[in-house]
């Protein structure tokens, strides 16, 4: 186990950046969902690491991490269900082509 904060922060930065880039450039809804998961995981690592190195002895970061995991699970379920329904309805999961909300 590394004894400094920096590698963890770097890891979480990489994960978040990858996730952001993925969300912005990929057109496939499933991939975008995966990228969102990446962001969430990056945040989780970030929180845990800061909790461990900056405020050791408190459990707030861990509690929030568990919240995020639970929420991410719920969110993935709903999002996948939505994507599934979208595909059934439109035969399409390309974000560029799903623009019916255009004003």
């Amino acid at each position, binding site marked *: 186990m590394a004894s400094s904060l920096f590698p963890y922060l770097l890891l979480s930065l990489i994960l978040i950046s990858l996730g952001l880039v993925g969300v*912005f450039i990929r057109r496939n809804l499933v991939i975008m969902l995966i990228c969102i998961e990446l962001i969430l995981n990056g945040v989780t690592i970030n929180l845990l690491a800061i909790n461990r190195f900056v405020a050791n002895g408190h459990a707030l970061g861990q509690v929030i991490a568990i919240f995020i995991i639970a929420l991410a699970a719920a969110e993935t379920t709903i999002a996948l269900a939505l994507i599934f329904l979208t595909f059934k309805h439109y035969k399409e999961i390309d*974000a560029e082509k799903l*623009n019916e909300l*255009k*004003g």
Partner: protein
Amino acid sequence: MSQNILLTVLAVFAPFVSIFIIGILTRNHKMLSAFVAILAISLSTVITFYLYFSNMQGVKAETYYFTWLVTDYFSLKFGVLFDALSLGMMIVVCLVSLLVHIYSLGYMHGEKGLARFYAWLSLFSWAMLLFVISPTLLQAFFGWELVGAASFLLIGFWFHKPEAAAAAKKAFVMTRFGDFGFFVGLLILLVSFGNIDFGVLNQLGKSPAVNHSLLTACALLIFMGIMGKSAQFPLHAWLPDAMEGPTPVSALIHAATMVAAGIYLIARAFGFFSSSPFAMEFIAVVGIITSFVAATIALVQDDVKKVMAYSTISQLGLMVSVLGAGGYKAGVFHLFSHAFFKALLFLCAGSLIHHFNTNDMWEMAEKGGVRKMKITLTTLIIGSLALAGIFPMAGFFSKDAIIVAFEQNHKEAFAYLTMLISFMTAYYTFRMIFVLLSPEPAHHHENCHEEHGHSEHHGHDSPYNMTIPLIILAVFSVFFGFLDTPMLGGYFDKFLLNKHEVEHLHWGVMVKSTIVAVAGIAFAYIQFAGKTGRREGFVEKVGFIKNLLVNKYYIDDFYFLLVRGFVIPFATVLNWIDRKIINDTGVNGTGNIVIYSGRFVSRLMNGMLQRYLGTSFAILIFILFLWQII
């Protein structure tokens, strides 16, 4: 509270109770309602007469106040003013009202809304008495408005007749227009001096601290209300139309009492009005113009009620004018005597109308049978003689008193005009009488009997409940005038003014006015008596005068034009502005701006999920950046 005050309150509120008893309990029983109303007004009458007889030798003025409304700034009092003037007027109002109540039993027999009719009559009696006893101008206004409403309801009693409905509206709106002035004058007085009673009001002019032009303005404004209610030129046009109401109502409201309310008010606030010479001059001139105009129009009327209506306006004009000239007693005296004989004339007309079912004097003459209605005819002639001013009727003395008052106040021109007017009065009154007395066309008479076989009352007089009030009023019309003569020790002066020296008779005026009146009657006799069929008097023979008079000096047309050509178009324009400019442009315009700006902003919504994401991320970064700076 003294006995006098207590009894006065009782007399005033008896009809008030009757309104509610009729409205709540007996509205479905016609005769019961009539009974309640008659009982109430009889009670008032009996009390009033009791008050009179117990104060016969001079009334000590008393006032009593009930506090109605207190604010820190002013307090509104209601009260009772008991003095000779109010007692006299109460007697007139109660007596005429009682007689009209009884008369209506016959006249309105079988009428569907009889309960309503009596409720309104009670309302009127209450409101009028409330007006008469009022010690403050505000309470007077209170009663003043209420009698107006009662008059509206009673003129429009037969509301299914469009003419009656229109007449009721005209009466109300036109008097209300006058009341605008009254109300403003009242407000200015209230604001400047508080809710003062008539005693203080009448003394205002004497105090040097008071702004006299303000008083003049108030007097003129209040006189505007009087012009409306007492039908003075040019706000007189509603009164002839008001004849669409039932005739007993015309007798009570539009001859004897309500239209005289204005005269009463001038008399009540006489000191106030006389503190402004200009206002007095104005009042005198308006009165005499009214009197002249109305008398000339009456010359050519065919409807018996219209003749009487114009004659009422003319007589009211005289009273106003003489009060304006400073003849307090003459005005009040004529007010009382006129109330009796004009009510009598109207009730006689009602009896004729009831009998012949028409208002037109020529048609009455044609149907024939006036001569057989002995009581009606006799009392009608008594009333006409009183109106024309023939000795010894009440009108003779009161009209002479007016002429004397004009002369004493150095208004000779007015005295001569009054002579001219009384000539015309005698002429048009007896024109009506002679037309009614036309010999019946023999052939027509027979037809009449064949055709109208069912009308078995043909040739009979009206029922007793109608003729008895006529007889009572006739007695008053004959004898009332003597109250002002030395024969009775100048009783009227003593009663009203507490004046003890007896005025001698003015023989010169008496002779002159008798000559004038007899000349009028003779003129009418020459032109109308003893002939049959429609015929024209000397006025109708001159084309343009006839046109002018038949069209009532085009005053009605002027009002029609004012309403149709100005008020309603003005309202329409305002409505157009409201709809088109304020609503469609202002309100909807604001709405449209919101809609269009929404449409503009909505272009940003291109449905690209990732662009939204990018935008929100950029905004987030921007906010963080700003936060850093701050």
